[in-house]
């Protein structure tokens, strides 16, 4: 799992944080104070296909055979999230009730090549 930096184009995780105070949302979102809206970007050349993304699945076997035999495939390998976690929110609804919920798969923790 790479964090993006200026020097490489390889598939990586780009970190970005939105502070609720900056966008005027801190009056109705009680906790947390912001949202880590990371996303994935970068190249996935063939030799990176399947790393670390679907390493634990049967696709890996197929991809390894494809690579080992230099079979040209029509598909492309993309830079996608491989690990995500929930965003726990404590917020006020329109009737000023305080609601606590976990929204699944909202924060990207790791990226990889499919």
């Amino acid at each position, binding site marked *: 799992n790479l964090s993006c930096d200026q020097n490489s184009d390889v598939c990586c995780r780009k970190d970005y944080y939105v502070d609720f105070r900056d966008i005027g949302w801190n009056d109705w979102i009680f906790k947390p104070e912001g949202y880590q809206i990371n996303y994935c970007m970068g190249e996935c050349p063939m030799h990176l296909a399947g790393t670390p993304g679907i390493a634990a699945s049967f696709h890996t076997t197929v991809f390894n055979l494809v690579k080992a035999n230099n079979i040209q495939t029509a598909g492309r390998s993309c830079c996608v999230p491989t690990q995500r976690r929930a*965003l726990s929110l404590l917020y006020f609804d329109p009737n000023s009730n*305080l609601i606590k919920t976990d929204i699944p798969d909202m924060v990207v923790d790791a990226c990889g090549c499919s």
Partner: protein
Amino acid sequence: VEARPGCPSCRMPPLEPSAEKAFLVEVAKQQILQKLNLSQRPNITHPVPRAAIANALRRLHLGKGRMDGSSQSSEWEKPQPDEQGYEIISFAETDPSGLLQFQLTQTKDQDMHILEAQLWLYIKAHRNITIQIYLAGHQRVPLVEQQLGSKGSGWHTFSLMPAMQNLFESKDETLHLELQCKGCHLNVTALVTTTGSSHQSFLVVKAKLQKPGHRITKR
């Protein structure tokens, strides 16, 4: 090796930092509103006193998992992956007749399955009293009767199940509770703190939202 401008995977031209920020802020807003089934950000017209919020959260945190007041830890049923779990804290407003009014928010096209519902009341020092709680309305429905004995001021919890499940099913958004007190010398409203105080009464509902199309597997 040479510097390549733009997004390496989608060939978009590079965004100005301010444009990137505006774009990501907009995406973040849309994502959060969509996941909370909200069409726009709520406007808070009746802010609850911070002290009341802090007290309620502290009570719930101290009693983590203790919902019916008697068992020490009854972790609520973890929602299934395709169900979203909610914990709703609704603060009471006391109307002039002494009724506790709760304004719940219902989503029309989704069913809330209520797991637990508990009323928290901060009751001043008392001696040998029994609290009775009714669902107010043209049909006055008894909900719970609980003997409190003799104690100093403090929080007490009253379970409101299964009435709360019926209320959510009726999609009624306003809940009025009537308190009665056996053994009290004063009116019960003098015993329970009112709106705006740091010991404001509150209702905690633990629920899970069943997504449309949710299949209940027959065992």
